[in-house]
């Protein structure tokens, strides 16, 4: 098997996070698709703690990946790094639904991806955040995300 360019991008981000020692949780649609949801997306969303040290690490992350973090829109604090393969968004402290870094981390999964380790928000939290965000693109994904969660649970039952 060989990774697609999209999968290679995820691995490159994981390598860069490790390089700059930035703790991040993958959230958003990529977190869903890493858990098997058949969805597509425009960007990779990472949730980090908003600290001075992390702000420095994010600048280093940009250098590592070959991009420069910039605010996507004032007053949103989200930073974006535009890269040839995809867009990387860095969210701070919490995501829609009041889901904090600490709470998401406590329920997150640790996935092994191409020999790297990724911390990924659980599917239940991804669904809750998209319900709370309520944008058309979030609402459009909800049925397939919810059904994927139901199928995963059904497969885990004996005989699945």
């Amino acid at each position: 098997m060989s990774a697609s360019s999209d999968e290679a991008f995820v691995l490159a981000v994981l390598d860069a996070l490790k390089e700059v020692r930035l703790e991040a949780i993958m959230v958003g649609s990529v977190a869903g698709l890493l858990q098997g949801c058949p969805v597509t997306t425009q960007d990779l969303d990472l949730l980090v703690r908003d600290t001075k040290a992390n702000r420095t690490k994010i600048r280093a992350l940009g250098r590592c990946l070959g991009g420069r973090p910039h605010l996507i829109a004032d007053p949103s604090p989200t930073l974006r790094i535009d890269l040839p393969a995809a867009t990387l968004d860095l969210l701070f402290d919490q995501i829609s639904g009041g889901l904090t870094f600490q709470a998401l981390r406590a329920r997150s999964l640790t996935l092994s991806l191409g020999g790297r380790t990724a911390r990924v928000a659980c599917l239940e939290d991804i669904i809750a955040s998209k319900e709370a965000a309520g944008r058309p693109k979030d609402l459009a994904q909800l049925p397939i995300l919810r059904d994927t969660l139901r199928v995963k649970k059904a497969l885990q039952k004996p005989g699945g």
Partner: protein
Amino acid sequence: MGRTRSPRRPATVSAADLVKQKLRIGRLLPDIDPGDLDLILSGLARPFGSGRRFFLREIKPGVRIF
């Protein structure tokens, strides 16, 4: 269009297993559309690194492909 597609990769779950899963889960969750169930089971069967593509790219304003 000059775009390179990722080659299809073998899934870790065989086609026969997928059919069995679809029958079983289809009975447990009959309200899920069979087409959606196909997509979901296929997505769950494809491990990371199997050549899956998921990022949409804007080729011109308002037009996205992946």
